[in-house]
């Protein structure tokens, strides 16, 4: 295994872990079925790209058309990516989250994702349309040689730091009284309202926080890939992340990480390996990958709906000892 391959794997894993932690906050903890999740990652990637790229009038870049081009140094593009994801959550959330019922929210968000992709794909002057942005500068490329092993390790390190920060934030939210209110809202929104919780505010906050984290994951990804196009953020990418959170364990940060390693990382690698082994016609393996992801979601929802690492039961210190009853989906009429 060469360094480039290892770096590739680790950085993708980091990006997927960050994305899954964000989706877990929104979907697993707060019950927001955000089928437009990937557009927040895309917003972060585009923002990081135009913040770090020179203007499109620059000699090497004149084959593309885009706005901005600010040539700002690292880490501003990454921070900007997170801010862009959070900012995008504002209008989307205000339109979708306040008035609609939860199932309609999911549909509206899915449609939002498709519309956003179609618009960026076709409005070329905005962000170079379907061809996407290329030659996105890598972080610190002015200071260090990016074609070395050392740079790969540096990038892995930067990604790991981001994973640690996002893990810290997610853990603090999930394990706090605030996180408890989010879970209560997920279980029964009307009852939470009757107890003085403001579901619109809670959902909006988690939409923005999750959007910002997704934006950061996009910024990390684009700095590594150096290209970003509409074909990289089609709505099925969101489904993969949902599969990861469901398989890993909704509501549990450890579950989100396990899911990220099992589904996006694991599947991608197996697919890549099988494709390289030339099994069957060229499109067979990628098509089978989608079938497998679908079966994976169904299988887990059917047989292990709480995932590999279920949401832990919170026992307060000093609680009387009780038998260890597990939550079983569907076993309790409610």
């Amino acid at each position, binding site marked *: 295994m060469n360094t480039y391959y290892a770096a590739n794997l680790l950085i993708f894993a980091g990006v997927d872990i960050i994305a899954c932690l964000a989706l877990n906050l929104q979907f697993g903890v707060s019950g927001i079925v955000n089928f437009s999740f990937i557009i927040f990652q895309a917003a972060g990637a585009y923002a990081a790209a135009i913040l770090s790229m020179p203007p499109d009038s620059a000699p090497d870049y004149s084959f593309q058309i885009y706005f901005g081009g600010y040539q700002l140094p690292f880490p501003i593009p990454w921070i900007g990516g997170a801010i862009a994801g959070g900012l995008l959550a504002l209008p989307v959330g205000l339109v979708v989250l306040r008035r609609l019922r939860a199932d309609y929210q999911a549909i509206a968000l899915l449609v939002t994702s498709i519309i956003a992709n179609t618009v960026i794909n076709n409005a070329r002057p905005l962000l170079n349309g379907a061809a996407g942005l290329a030659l996105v500068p890598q972080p610190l490329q002015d200071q260090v040689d990016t074609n070395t092993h050392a740079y790969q390790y540096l990038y892995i390190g930067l990604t790991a730091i981001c994973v640690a920060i996002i893990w810290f934030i997610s853990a603090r*939210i999930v394990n706090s009284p605030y996180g408890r209110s989010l879970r209560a809202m997920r279980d029964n929104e009307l009852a939470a309202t009757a107890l003085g919780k403001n579901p619109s505010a809670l959902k909006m906050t988690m939409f923005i926080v999750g959007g910002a984290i997704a934006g950061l994951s996009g910024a990390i990804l684009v700095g590594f890939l150096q290209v970003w196009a509409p074909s990289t953020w089609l709505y099925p990418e969101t489904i993969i992340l949902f599969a990861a959170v469901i398989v890993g364990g909704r509501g549990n940060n450890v579950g989100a990480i396990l899911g990220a390693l099992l589904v996006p990382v694991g599947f991608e690698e197996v697919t890549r390996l099988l494709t390289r082994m030339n099994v069957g016609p060229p499109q067979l393996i990628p098509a089978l990958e989608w079938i497998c992801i679908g079966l994976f979601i169904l299988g887990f929802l059917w047989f292990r709906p709480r995932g590999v690492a279920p949401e832990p039961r919170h026992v307060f210190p000093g609680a009387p000892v009780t038998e260890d009853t597990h939550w079983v989906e569907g076993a309790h009429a409610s």
Partner: protein
Amino acid sequence: MPLSEPMLTARDVHRHFEGLHAVDGVSIEVMPGRITGLIGPNGAGKSTLMAVLAGTLPASSGTVIFQGEDITRMPAYQRARRGLVRTFQLPSEFAQLTVLENLMVAAPDNRGESLLGALLGKRYWMPDEERLVAQARGLLKRFGMSAKESDYAGTLSGGQKRLVEIMRALMLRPRLLLLDEPMSGVHPSIVDEIAGYLETLRDEGMTILMVEHELHMVDRLCDPVVVMAQGKVIGQGGMAALRKQPEIVEAYLVG
């Protein structure tokens, strides 16, 4: 505030659903320190009235005044924070939270209940949390549910879920408790217990407005009683006096 001042006043409250007048010009007063009963046949508009008073449904017209403040346009969560707390006709526990967590969700004044507070970490909010856990455990003990504190609320029996809901509402330290059929679907032995708790709460000065179908329970707990039929109030007063009015007996038995 003198004792004669009503805790809650509804004036000419209407609630229409696409032409159906579920609540059709209701005016009632809820006096402090009493359990006011709300009775009437199915479809009389009792639950709709409760929802309008709690803010879960907006009123089509009319005025709702709580402790001297016009709350007609106030969202439900703000009414709850002011001490106007409702329970639901159907069980509405947070199923995947434990019993103690269900109570803790309702507790006000916890520094960890904001995003910033959560990010500042345990050291910032733990003192509040510990104080509120002690308070919640006090309630659990009082309602005989201590052994169940770490059980998922979704695994409880119907009667226990009712108790959780009442305890949860009490965590908010309500000024006025709106109970929508707190005894429905509950085993008779627990019904008696719940009635006992409600009497104790009343004797401690709590104001309660409750919808109830079991007339012997209304006899025992409620004074005064408001009778509704077809969206209107058709009588109010003591149960003994109401029983003597033939139109009320007829509406309740026939309607």
